[in-house]
């Protein structure tokens, strides 16, 4: 719920930076490793928006995969079955890349 509140604060702040235009849709980029369950977050967001000045506002989730980058061949690959080794060259020398995202990726604003 506190993450949902932070999302709405971010929407308010960004609308404010764009002349206070009403946002009708917010894009959220959520990584598989963010620690956030998208459906729970959606439920909390929809609950908080009811009766708020932000209403009507809908949410669009983009789920980002858990990825690592290979130090040997440079490939950024998706981690499947918790296997941290490179999916192309099988090197075990890999570093964290994506999947921790928790971002507001866009707002659709009403034309002034």
């Amino acid at each position, binding site marked *: 719920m506190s993450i949902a509140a932070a999302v709405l604060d971010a929407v308010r*702040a960004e609308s404010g930076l764009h002349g206070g235009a009403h946002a009708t849709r917010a*894009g959220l980029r959520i990584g598989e490793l963010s620690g956030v369950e998208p459906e729970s977050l959606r439920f909390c967001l929809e609950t908080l928006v009811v009766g708020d000045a932000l209403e009507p506002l809908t949410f669009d989730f983009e789920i980002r995969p858990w990825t690592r980058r290979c130090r040997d061949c440079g490939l950024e690959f998706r981690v499947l079955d918790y296997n941290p080794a490179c999916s192309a060259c099988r090197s075990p020398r890999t570093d964290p890349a994506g999947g921790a995202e928790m*971002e507001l*990726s866009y*707002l659709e604003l009403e034309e002034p």
Partner: protein
Amino acid sequence: MRVPLERKVLNENDCLAAALRERFKRNGTFCLNLISSPGSGKTALLERTLEGFDPARRVAVLTGDIQTDNDARRLARYGFPVRQITTGGACHLDARMVERGLEGWPVDDFEILFLENVGNLVCPTSYDLGEDARAVLLSVTEGEDKPLKYPATFHHADLMVLNKIDLLPYVPFQAALACENARRVQPDIEIVQVSCTSGQGLDVWRAWLEARL
């Protein structure tokens, strides 16, 4: 009109955490964020850790719970500064709570600051507290697959403390499998195995801490 953004949802928390981290770095304070399920032994580990320190050492603890100051009272017996953060419902600490918890303390003088998070393997993961390192505790009365069930938490941890190893003869827990699971999620994770009851492994844990100062 669609406006593309790249705004982190927890941007404000991250900014506060960055300021805390800078402050800890400037003063040479090593800050450790301890995360685990309820009952894995965070407070017991801190009790044994504080008990082993020379009283002249400059060590402090902020301990978070939803309710009660029981943990702070347990930890205060060792003579080091301890404060309870009672979150009043929130299931994690955030950087603002840490900043407020430190108010009035001679933070600049601390060599180690422990942040005992609220017992929860999910929500604390998302909140940077400005720590230098993050330790996740797993006890042998839990499942070996906890790292696979809560990959985000273990993925962001620098150290796994496998606790209650004195109970290994009495439970079906396979320590090697738990360690393997943690390394699948976070290949660079360091692991120490301890018992806060028997004291086994605590020397390795202390050495890990001292190496970071």
